[in-house]
């Protein structure tokens, strides 16, 4: 809370720990940022230099050819895929947070009579998976989601047992049953309790899991790979990955295909595409960060 930052560092142990913390975190930030810088600099390097002398932080031959290629050939596609990806992410994350937290909350309630069965029901899905073919057949034959917007959100993305368990764990630890009892005595319905009491207390976990879900939606390229065949419906990451894995596939094919890869986007273009894919998240993330730092607001329960 606010007081912490103003509170003076009193003990020696705190000081030592602070120094260690800064040191470790600076090192980690460094190792996290450096490859990223390499990514950016390689996207601005000329193709010839990349192939001949490799990646470097300060290339001898600067060139924006990669970005020019990406935007000139694909600007229509990129613009559209940005939009599609943003829509998926926003809608998908909202829906996902909603049903995940609902289920996690219900499972955390110790007075819920079906708790054990439901926990097992949820958890079992983490262990056994029908596999790609049955999932595909189920989604396309029964629910007809192929080439629809739902294909981005539904298969495997909307909710998974891992997040539900995390939510459950958090609620179990932090939402004291007495709080709920008090609300019930006051006559609140389950829905009201959930909305007015549980949600405000859970901002850290909602932000945490919401972030991860959001990143997953943003980065997902597997659903479009199987379910979206219309090119004008591709998301940003699927566009990127199509290009990247096409190169791999073609190079695995027989000798005839060798010549084809000469026409594929160069290494620097691939890096440029990657940078374009990551940029929006980087820009937006600091705005959402405050929810992590916020602790539990007023209304806690004294043990």
């Amino acid at each position, binding site marked *: 809370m606010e007081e912490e930052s103003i509170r003076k560092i009193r003990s020696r142990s705190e000081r030592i720990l602070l120094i260690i913390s800064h040191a470790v975190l600076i090192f980690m930030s460094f190792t996290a940022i450096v490859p990223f810088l390499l990514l950016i600099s390689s996207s601005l390097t000329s193709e010839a230099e990349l192939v001949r002398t490799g990646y470097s932080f300060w290339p001898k031959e600067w060139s924006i050819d990669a970005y020019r290629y990406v935007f000139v050939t694909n600007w229509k596609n990129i613009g559209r895929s940005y939009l599609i990806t943003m829509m998926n992410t926003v809608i998908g994350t909202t829906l996902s947070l909603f049903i995940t937290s609902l289920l996690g909350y219900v499972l955390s309630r110790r007075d819920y009579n079906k708790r054990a069965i439901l926990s097992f029901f949820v958890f079992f899905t983490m262990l056994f998976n029908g596999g790609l073919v049955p999932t595909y057949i189920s989604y396309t034959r029964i629910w007809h989601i192929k080439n629809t917007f739902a294909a981005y959100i539904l298969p495997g993305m909307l909710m998974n*047992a891992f997040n539900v368990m995390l939510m459950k764990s958090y609620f179990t630890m932090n939402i004291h049953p007495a709080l709920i009892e008090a609300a019930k005595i006051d006559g609140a319905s389950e829905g009201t309790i959930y909305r007015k009491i549980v949600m405000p207390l859970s901002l850290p976990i909602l932000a945490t899991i919401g972030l991860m879900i959001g990143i997953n939606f943003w980065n997902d390229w597997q659903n479009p790979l199987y379910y979206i065949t219309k090119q004008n419906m591709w998301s940003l990451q699927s566009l990127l990955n199509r290009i990247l894995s096409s190169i791999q596939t073609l190079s695995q094919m027989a000798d005839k295909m060798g010549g084809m890869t000469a026409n594929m986007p160069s290494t620097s273009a691939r890096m440029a595409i990657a940078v374009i894919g990551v940029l929006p998240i980087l820009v937006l993330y600091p705005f959402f960060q405050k929810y992590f730092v916020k602790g539990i607001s007023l209304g806690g329960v004294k043990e």
Partner: protein
Amino acid sequence: MNTDPSKSISEKESYKRKKRFFTALDLMALPGIIYLIINNYIPMGGLFIAFKKIDFAKGIFASDWVGFQNFKFLFRSSDAAVILRNTLLYNLAFIVLNCVCGIAVGLFLNEIRNKLAKKFYQTAILLPQLISIIIVAYITYGFLASETGFVNNHILKAMGKAAVNFYSKPAYWPFFLIFIHIWKTIGYNSIIYFSSIISVDKSLYESAEIDGANRFQQITKITLPLIKPIAITLTLMACGRIFYSDFGLFYQVPMNSGPLYATTNTIDTYVYRALLQLNDIGMSSAAGFFQSIVGFCLIMIVNGIVRKISPENALY
């Protein structure tokens, strides 16, 4: 289970609720349940494919049953032991390191006072998560390649040492892969623990300080025990995935290099490479089934143990 006398009122009330067919809580859980049925349980029926030899002319349902034949390929290879060993050891290392490093970094983040520094660190360590693994593979290649790699050209050459062909020396790769895995996942991992750490009641620390505990003791005696539940949950869930591996990490990052198989070949990469030619869905289903069964057995055992030690932390 509820033996607390102060809960007797609610017991009566929930007894009343039990009489109703659908409680409000049931309704709230319904969307999730429906989704799991659609997404997970219906396709799960397709696991029988693992026991069939699929003939598309006959269709999936009319194809012949072949018992365990589709499972043979997992064990036939002279490398079968190596593959299983690699998968297991890497996952064990990941489970331990994810937990230890995640908690450690979460604690460090909690110590930082300066808000700006905190924001910066959190953003920075999350960056690797955003980069797709194929790009990570290219960047690694940019560092480690023989002809054009950064390490060989700028570091080793400057030190006067001979160039090392990293992509043909399997001994280095457990370190590389573990490092890259931690590098990529520590951002999110630490945030999960961090959000639990900051939920600990601050007054506990204050009273501990008054009692004379230093910061280290505060952490080990207060924080760690209170985040035990989430650590156990995460570890338990990881146990269920013990025979799965991150395909991108073990296939893409080593650039699919043959000489490195000894330390980078896992079940998933083996199955993928095998089925690149054969594309037999019976076999791939069998592989998935095998991985699931092992994870299932392991979780049953470990969860049973956890249930005996601290029941409220068991997964179900």
